[in-house]
């Protein structure tokens, strides 16, 4: 258990802040859901940590687990409730002077986009998350994934189109 504790401390201190912010955004800015996702991520990561030793890609590995946890949870929640969970955080604490109508539209659309992201190709999803949810540049994404910048841009465009098609399908369903 001491070894696990040391490993946990190291992983947590190195990556948790970044990972938590990513989870918070992917959970539609809901702190409680993000906390749950982080806990589950570390549980899974530590259970599998013996099989993983590449420290340079540690964050990418944790991120993949975290994304998987979040989307799995969303699927499970929909399965049992047959509905998309409404956002819980009061948005006016985040945006100082929102126009309620714009804010509501933004909230509705954001929730739909997050849900639709489950349906798109994981490669596209990964690029979109890096670009829009982590704020990475195209060059950074290319370096992280070992692909060229042109491929990153092409994937971003195709991911957005795929997302739009999913949303449209959802709307007309």
């Amino acid at each position: 258990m001491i070894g696990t504790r040391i490993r946990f401390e190291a992983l947590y201190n190195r990556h948790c802040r970044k990972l938590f912010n990513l989870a918070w955004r992917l959970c539609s800015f809901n702190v409680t859901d993000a906390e749950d996702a982080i806990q589950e991520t570390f549980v899974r990561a530590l259970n599998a940590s013996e099989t993983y030793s590449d420290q340079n890609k540690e964050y990418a590995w944790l991120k993949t687990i975290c994304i998987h946890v979040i989307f799995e949870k969303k699927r499970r929640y929909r399965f049992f409730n047959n509905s998309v969970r409404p956002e819980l955080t009061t948005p006016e604490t985040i945006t100082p002077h929102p126009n309620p109508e714009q804010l509501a539209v933004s909230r509705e659309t954001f929730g739909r986009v997050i849900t639709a992201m489950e349906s798109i190709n994981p490669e596209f999803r990964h690029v979109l998350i890096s670009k829009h949810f982590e704020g990475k540049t195209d060059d950074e994404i290319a370096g992280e994934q070992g692909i060229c910048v042109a491929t990153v841009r092409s994937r971003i465009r195709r991911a957005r189109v795929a997302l739009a098609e999913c949303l449209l399908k959802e709307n007309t369903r």
Partner: protein
Amino acid sequence: MNCSNARDIIDTCFQENPDRKVLPVMPPDLRDHLNGCDICRTYFETVMIALHDPRLRMAIELPKKLKSKTWRTVQASSSRSVQVKHLAATMAALVIFVMGYLFGTAHVKVEPSQPLSGELYFDQFCGYLPASSFDPSRYFTPVDEISFYRFRLTGDSVMSFPSLLTGYGHYQLDTHLIERSDASVCLVFVSPLGDLLTLRIREIKNGLMDDAYIVHRDPLRVMAYSVSWFQNEWHFTISARIPPEYLLTIAKELAIRT
């Protein structure tokens, strides 16, 4: 303009304006294209509203107790007995399911997509949207055709939505999103599925008033429509992702009482 050009322009608009502080001024031909192409409109909506949400650029601090909570969860899950219990429960569930399946006791009743009479199933909320050929003039309805109206916004108003809306959708007022001033009020109603219906009421004095309901496509949301009308120096607009005919029905039945 084709779809590829339209998406290029949309992407460029937002690369130049990543924080979305100002909405981009759309060239007229792009606007025309978006009016006719639902995929590009959804693309615009996705990029503009969701993927450039200003909140995506914000960061929050780690909750103080997260570390200890996470460690407790890790400790609990690493206990072998928990894993054994989970395995046993899974096996038991599997056995029950297989037995139920084999002996015919686990039938799940599913509502048929078509009634037994053979008529096509039609869901007013989710089933049908006249998206391709939208003609606003079809939805002009003279105000004198309306039978039921009581609009007053003095004092604390109580609003009742028509029975169909409350019966099917159970839209609830989101009290976090009420905007109210002397001359206007904006109310946002949210359904359990996260769909929203907004009602904006403004006082208009000495203005030109159409004596008709006017149905528009919502400029921001795909498959969303808005209906606006004047009544007793008040201008009303409701907007939702609801087919225009039905939204118009809601507008006609809407009643605000003091």
